[in-house]
């Protein structure tokens, strides 16, 4: 677990190395989404594109919208449980070529939702270090 606390209130990140070319991994992400996220899942890899996931891992359906798409490099989207749109978060998927194939790095953050929540507050500033300290206290 790697909580990121700089300009973000909470983020989870993880990664995996896959022995396939980056082009193949990208194709699996956006063309074969249903084969690994859940039957019928689709991601339209363009800004504003629809995200629809029948998530076998969480057992929920999730809707979303693509924020950024750079073929073979990066896919970023907001998503939320269909039944709980207030619980939106942002997923960033980065693909990096490595000697043995491709490293896939996933980061999911609450940043976008927080930014939206705070949009009416022009003086919003995140002070990650203090929050990180508070979070550490909570774990004690």
């Amino acid at each position, binding site marked *: 677990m790697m909580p990121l606390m700089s300009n973000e209130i909470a983020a989870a990140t993880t990664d995996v190395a896959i022995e396939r070319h980056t082009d193949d991994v990208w194709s699996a992400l956006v063309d074969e989404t249903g084969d690994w996220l859940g039957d019928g899942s689709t991601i339209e890899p363009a800004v504003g594109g629809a995200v629809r996931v029948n998530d076998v891992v969480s057992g929920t359906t999730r809707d979303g919208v693509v924020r950024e798409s750079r073929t073979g490099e990066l896919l970023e989207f907001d998503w939320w449980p269909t039944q709980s749109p207030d619980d939106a978060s942002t997923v960033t998927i980065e693909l990096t070529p490595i000697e043995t194939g491709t490293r896939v790095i996933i980061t999911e953050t609450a940043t976008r939702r927080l930014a939206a929540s705070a949009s009416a507050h022009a003086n*919003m500033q995140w002070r990650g270090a203090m929050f990180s300290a508070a979070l550490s206290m909570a774990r004690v």
Partner: protein
Amino acid sequence: MSDASRTFSALADGNRLAIFESLVSGRAATATLLAGDLNISRQAAAKHLGLLVDAGLASSIRVGRETLYRSEVAPLADVSSWIATVESQWNDRLAALKIHLTN
């Protein structure tokens, strides 16, 4: 809205976060004192404190004519739990992606 979302939302305002940080730093404080530190009105500070109390991030006690507020960090465990859950879910999804691509 999940518990973690309530915590996120409660801290999504700069002044509210600053108040929470001040309380976390270890001192109980009144709305008047916090308002002075942040250069906001006492009413605004009291409103922020009320929202922090509602979210379980602060508690209050009456001392004479004053109301003292202090931080409560237990809800931050919800944030920690959210991170752990999300990471675990992505580990499972990435495992499925890897199997799909390598089988």
